[in-house]
């Protein structure tokens, strides 16, 4: 653990004020935060005199935000740290998978190096939690899992992480379930899945096997679902039913879930209620080429919505920055969040929940006792940070500066 110190002169939000026309603005003040054993143990106004002899680090008036959660990535797939390479065009998903399969072994020798480059990038943008899916398939076996695990272990003092065993080339194919079991014994924390209709061609069996693995290993679930329209919707609906039956509430997530935005609104509402009741989560990468799940509706109904950058700069696509805050900016632009409070409250999708202020303007973060995990940015408030995506000046994880400088 680090020696106790004061993080001085950090800008924290203290409330909303309304101007003469009723528009909201954010009030901020400068504070000193005492950090000990990875926690904020004391929060004082900057007029407070710190005793001489105590350690300090100057926050330089920068705004503090809770650190971010990257909730959908594929650390094993990226080309980062290799020479530039554009993906090969594919006519359809089948061809895309074939192209990936051809490349997997070639990339396997550099998995740890590539994953580390991705982790560095994510960390530099303020994510201190990473959920990574890792291919478990007949071509690569467990080799990518080993590389990703080794990379993440090296960063275990800088972030927290979860690894999802991901049957990218189908769960119901020969020998994949035994491989998945081996993966769950070898460091994977969650059971993954993929398009029970489109890939596995047996919705019920595919979901059943996922649930089976989860219960066998007492693990949470996070499945990829690109299947669109009503077949995707049915899949989510069926999945919710199985989650309820297995009493796996609060332990299951659906990633992408484009289909939820492709059914009529009454059905969106119905499924949102069910997902909420089952404590399930939706992970979105905020695509601009696909339908989005109805993030606002899901959020209003109490479904946990998280964001991720997805695998990027890999055989699937050349773009991507690893910046979860930029994903929120994109969300704001897509959903036309442009007033102070809706911008500010959107930050929760990056942090996985916490925002400095509640919608009513009560201070919710940071409070004494909170983990000392903060991102420092050159902005005047959360709303500005969401709209303008400022550079991350420093990232602190449990009291330790893990990226940038102070």
């Amino acid at each position: 653990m680090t020696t106790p110190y004061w993080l001085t002169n950090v800008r924290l939000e203290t409330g909303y004020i309304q101007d003469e026309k009723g528009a909201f603005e954010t009030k901020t003040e400068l504070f000193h935060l005492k950090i000990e054993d990875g926690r904020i143990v004391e929060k004082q106004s900057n007029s407070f005199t710190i005793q001489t002899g105590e350690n300090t680090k100057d926050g330089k008036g920068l705004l503090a935000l809770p650190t971010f959660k990257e909730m959908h990535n594929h650390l094993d797939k990226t080309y980062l740290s290799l020479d530039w390479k554009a993906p090969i065009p594919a006519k359809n998903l089948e061809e895309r998978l074939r192209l990936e399969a051809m490349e997997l072994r070639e990339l396997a020798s550099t998995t740890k190096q590539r994953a580390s480059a991705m982790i560095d990038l994510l960390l530099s943008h303020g994510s201190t939690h990473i959920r990574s899916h890792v291919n478990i398939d007949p071509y690569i076996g467990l080799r990518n899992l080993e590389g990703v695990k080794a990379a993440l272990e090296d960063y275990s003092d800088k972030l927290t992480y979860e690894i999802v065993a991901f049957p990218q080339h189908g769960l119901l194919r020969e020998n994949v379930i035994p491989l998945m079991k081996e993966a769950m014994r070898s460091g994977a924390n969650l059971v993954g899945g993929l398009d029970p209709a489109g890939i596995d061609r047996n919705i019920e069996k595919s979901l059943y096997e996922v649930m089976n693995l989860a219960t066998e290993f007492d693990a949470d679930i996070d499945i990829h679902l690109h299947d669109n329209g009503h077949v995707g919707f049915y899949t989510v609906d069926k999945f919710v039913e199985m989650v309820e039956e297995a009493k796996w509430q609060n332990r299951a997530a659906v990633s992408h879930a484009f289909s939820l935005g492709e059914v009529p609104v009454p059905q969106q509402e119905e499924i949102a209620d069910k997902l909420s009741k089952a404590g399930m989560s939706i992970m979105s990468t905020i695509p601009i080429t696909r339908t989005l799940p109805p993030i606002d509706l899901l959020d209003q109904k109490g479904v946990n919505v998280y964001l991720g950058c997805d695998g990027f700069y890999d055989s699937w696509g050349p773009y991507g920055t690893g910046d979860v805050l930029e994903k929120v900016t994109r969300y704001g632009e897509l959903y036309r969040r442009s007033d102070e409070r809706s911008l500010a409250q959107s930050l929760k999708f990056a942090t996985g929940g916490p925002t400095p202020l509640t919608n009513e303007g009560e201070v919710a973060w940071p409070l004494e006792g909170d983990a000392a995990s903060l991102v420092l940015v050159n902005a005047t408030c959360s709303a500005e940070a969401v709209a303008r995506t400022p550079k991350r000046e420093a990232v602190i994880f449990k009291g330790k500066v893990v990226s940038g400088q102070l």
Partner: protein
Amino acid sequence: MTTFWLVNVRLEKGFKYDNHRITGTETEICHLKVEDGKIVEITNVYPNTEEGQVDACHQLLLPSLRDMHIHIDKTYYGGPWKACTPLTKGIFTRLEEEKELLPKLLPTAQERAEKMIELYLKNGHTHIRTHCNVDPVIGLKNLEATVNALKKYEDVLSYEIVAFPQHGLLKSDSVQLIREAMKNGATLVGGVDPATVDRNIEKSLYTIFEIAVENNKGVDLHLHDPNTLGAYTFERMAQYTKEAGLKGRATISHGIALGDIQGEALIEMAAILKEQEIDVTTTVPINRATIPIPTLDKYDIKVSVGHDSITDHWSPFGTGNTIQKLGILAERFRLSDENSLSTTLKYGTGGVTPLNEKGERVWPKVGDDASMMLVNASCSAEAVARRASVESVFFKGKKVESKLIESNSVQV
């Protein structure tokens, strides 16, 4: 320094192929002699000379960028953060806001415009087309601020100023003001939605083109009206362009309706626009149907990107980073292989790319203006996909440097 060598520059040389598929881009290290704003020599042999040298350190050289649709007169950029107010009456909420806001912003308008120009320069632009409010609230005062700001930067960028009747040419009775603007520094006649805003398509277009002809200038119209209404307006605009003899000098900004029409209708529309060489600018919006940029390009309609806003009372989003915008364009249209990523650059450079479709170097050539930028990438495709940083910028041979003395935030 009128003559110097830009040494150790990475230039694209050709494509790499695998069975006719373009797999990568070949580059080579060259040395460029720049004289009187032009590139006068390109060689692989390191120059043995007393003349000044600038070392490009193997960075990639690309043509500098153009923002073809921005409003530098109307921005919060450079001032304190301000979110937008909630919309209650659509576009009219914003127009009403301008009545109070424009006079309030006026004292710092030039200063903010200059900060925006600085941002553009830093991001590799050496050309800006800005739409400047000309309306009964602010009269010609924003134009004055815009002209003054741009004049200060004449040595490092070229520009066009569109006299923009934001509050409606007819609706706000701004015809006379636009005429005056054309005599006071505006270089194009602007307009906005002849149907929805002016409520008289023919009269609005007629007046715009009349003013353009009087001043021998082109036009650039904001057209947001959707589907058939927008399409009809484009057709009438093309007709007026023809009658006014303004072929090649008319621009549609936004052109939302181009995203609403498909198939034969789109092909016909493209032919109509092509005949009058009407070009299109777009912000590549992600929150509405985007116009089909690659399809328009295929039909030989010139498409350029612009940021429209960096942060103002219309939108808090915006970066002024065209390389980023080109990446979003590519992502949006799934342009992800080497060739299509590489080609995407043209939407930000006025059509210029280092290689043509055959993979031959067409830029830079001896005789070209030395308006260019060095970026941190191995090729154009990587620059677009991976959002390369711009390391230095040259305008007609001159290295672009900041003119800002201090960077205090502007008070509004």
